[in-house]
C-alpha cells in the first residue's frame, strides 16, 4: 500500500538531489536542471497532498499546472540568457559570470 509518506519521501529525495545539483554544479545548464528537479519535487508534494487530504477537489492540480507553466517560461528565459552569455564569454561555467562583482 503506497501512503502519503512514500510520496513525501520521494519528493524530499528528489528535492535534495535538485538542491545539490543547483548548488554544486559549475555549469549553468546543470543548475537550471537542478532547479527543475526541485520544482518537480514540489509538484509531487502538491499532487500527493491533494490526493490524500482533499480527494474531491483540484486545488493541488491547479497549483501544479501553474508551477509547470512558470517553470517552462523560466527555463526559456534562463536558457536564452545562458546562450547569450556563452556567445560573449565562450563559457557556461557560473564562476565566469562575475562582471557585477566588486
Amino acid at each position, binding site marked *: 500500500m503506497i501512503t502519503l509518506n512514500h510520496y513525501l519521501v520521494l519528493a524530499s529525495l528528489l528535492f535534495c538531489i535538485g538542491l545539490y545539483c*543547483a548548488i554544486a554544479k559549475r555549469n549553468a545548464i546543470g543548475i537550471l536542471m537542478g532547479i527543475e528537479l526541485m520544482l518537480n519535487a514540489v509538484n509531487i508534494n502538491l499532487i500527493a497532498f491533494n490526493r490524500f487530504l482533499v480527494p474531491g477537489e483540484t486545488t493541488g492540480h491547479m497549483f501544479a499546472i501553474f508551477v509547470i507553466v512558470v517553470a517552462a517560461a523560466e527555463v526559456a528565459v534562463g536558457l536564452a540568457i545562458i546562450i547569450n552569455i556563452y556567445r560573449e564569454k565562450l563559457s557556461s561555467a557560473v564562476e565566469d559570470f562575475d562582471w557585477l*562583482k*566588486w
Partner: protein
Amino acid sequence: MLKMLSNAWLIPIPPAVAFVLIVLVTKRFKLLSALLAIFAITLSFIYSIGILLEVLSQGITMNNPVEYSVNWLSLGGETIRPLLIEAGVLIDPLTSVMLVVVTLVALLVEIYSLGYMKGDPGFSVFFGYLSFFVMSMLGLVLANNYFMMFIFWELVGLCSYLLIGFYFHKHSAAKASKKAFITNRWGDFGFMLGIFSLFLIFGTFNFNDLAEAIGRQHGAFLIIPALLVLAGPIAKSAQFPLHVWLPDAMEGPTPVSALIHAATMVAAGVYLIARGYILFTGLEAVSFAIAYIGGFTALFAAIIAVVQFDIKRIIAFSTVSQLGYMVMALGVGSLSAGIFHLTTHAFFKALLFLAAGSVIHAAHTQNIFEMGGLSKSMKITTWSFIVGALSLSGIFPLAGFWSKDEILLVTLEKGFTGLYIIGSLVAFLTAFYVFRLVFVVFFGKKKTRAYESPLSMTVPLMVLAFLSITSGFAGAPFVEKGFSSFIYFQEPHHVQVNFLIMIGSTVLALGGIALAWAVYVKKLIDPVLVTDRARSLYVVVYNKFYIDEIYHWLFYRIMMNIGKAFNWNDRHVVDGIFDGIAGLTRAAGAKLRLVHTGNLQNYALVIFASVVIIVIWMAVPVLGGIQ
C-alpha cells in the same frame, strides 16, 4: 485714522525695494539709481512725518503705546516652554521721533551724496547700501520685541561693515571695516545672551510684556541680564572700552560717517537703552555703571579729540564723547534728556560731518594743518560748519545748548555731582577742540586752493544748519508742552530753568572758544611749546591712551595662543577620535566585503543551510521548538 499707524510696517519697505531694484536692475544707470534711492527715502520720510502727527493728535503717550504684530514663529506648548516670536511694530513718541530723525538725516545725506560721490565707480552700489541701511535702521526703530530688534541690529552692523569698507581696495579701509564688525560682535554676543536670559526668566521677547513683567518682580537677579543687554549699546554706541572701532570707521565715505557713524546707527545703542529702560532703571548698580561709563567715555574721547590732526577723526571722537553724554543722561535716570540730546546731536553732528566732507572734497586732504583760510572761498560750508560747532559747544540759543544743559541739569538734580563736574569739563574741552578745528581750517593763512561745493551738497548743509539752530526749542524749558512731556519714562516732567547751570556751561563753552582763539588765531600760546613741556602726556593722549595697542597685545598674544591651543586640540584630539572611528569602520568594511563572493551558488547554499538550521531549531523541543 488708526489705519496709518497700523500700516506703519510700510515705512521700511520703500528703501528695501529701492535696494533690491538698484542692485538687480538699475545698477548700470547711475543717476536713476540715486534718484530711486532718494525717492524711496522721501516716501518713508513723508510717512514718518504722518506717524509723528498721528501720534501727537491721537494722544499716544509713552505709557499707552500702540502695538501691531503678527506671530512670526510659534513653537512648543505642553512639554516645552512655548516660544513665540512676533513680527510687529511698536509706536510711541520715542519711535515716532526716531523715525523722523532717521529718515530726515538719511534724505539729506543721500541728496548730499549726489554731489559728494559723483564720478565714483561704485556710485549705484553706494546708494543701494544706503537704502539697505535705512531699511534696517527703520526696522530696528519700529521693532516691538528684542528678537526682531536684534535681527535689524545685526543688519545695521552689516551695512556699517559694507560702507566702512566701501573703498575696499584701500588696505586701511578693509582693516577698519573688519575692526568695526569684530568689535561689534563682542557687544552683540552679550546682547544676544541678555535677550536669551530675559526670555528664560520671563518667557517673552515683547517689550511691553517684558516691561509689565519686570514691573511686577524686579530684583537683583536681573543684574546679569541687564549687564549682558548693556554690552550691545556699549559696542554699538562706541562706549569705553569698545569705542575703538568708531574713529577707524572714518575710512568710509564721509556721507556714511555722517549718517551711520554720527546720526543714526551709533544712536541705536542709546535707543536700545531707552527701549528697555525699565530693566536698567530699577537696578541701582547697573544705572550707576551706565552713568559712569557714559561720563568716563565723554571725558576720555574729548581729551583725545583735542590733539588729533585728522578733521574726520576729531569729529569722530567728538561723536564718541557726545554719545557718552547721552548714555550718561540715561544712566542718571533721564530718558528725556538722553533722547533729546540724541535728536539735536543727530542734526548738528550730521551737519559737521557733511561740512567736513565738503571741505575734504575741496581741499583733498584730511589733515587740518594742511588746510587754512577756507572761509573766503567756501562761504556756505564755513558758516554751516560754524553753526554746527556752536551748537556742539552748547552756545545759546542753538540746539546743543538746550539738550546739553538738560543733561547737566539732570545729573545735578539726581545728585551726581562728580558727573556734573565731568560733564562741564567735557563742555569746555568740546568747545576748545571744535573751535581749534574751525580756526585752523577756515581762518588763518590760505594754504590750499578750494572752491565751494555744488548745490546738491550745500543745500543739505543749509537745511541741517537750520535744524541745528531750531530743533533745540522743542525741548527748551520755556516751551509749555516740550520734549520732556512727550518722551519720558513713567511720568512726564517739566524742565526747570536753572540759570546757574545755564550760565556756568555757557561760560565754560565761551572759555573753550576763547582759549582756542587765543592759541590758534592770536598765537598767544604756542601749542608746540605746550606739547613739548608735557611730551610724554601728549604722546599718550595722541596715541589714544594706547587702547588699540593694548587690544592688539591682548588678541595677538593671548587670544591667538589660546586659539592655537584649541586648534591643536581640535585637529589632534577631536579629529583623532572621529577619524579613528571612521578608519575602524572602513577597515571592518574592507574585511567584511569579502563575504560577498558574488557567486549565486554560495548564496543559495547559505540560504538553504539557514532554512535547515531553522527547521531543526523549531523541530527540537529542547531548543524551544514545537512541543
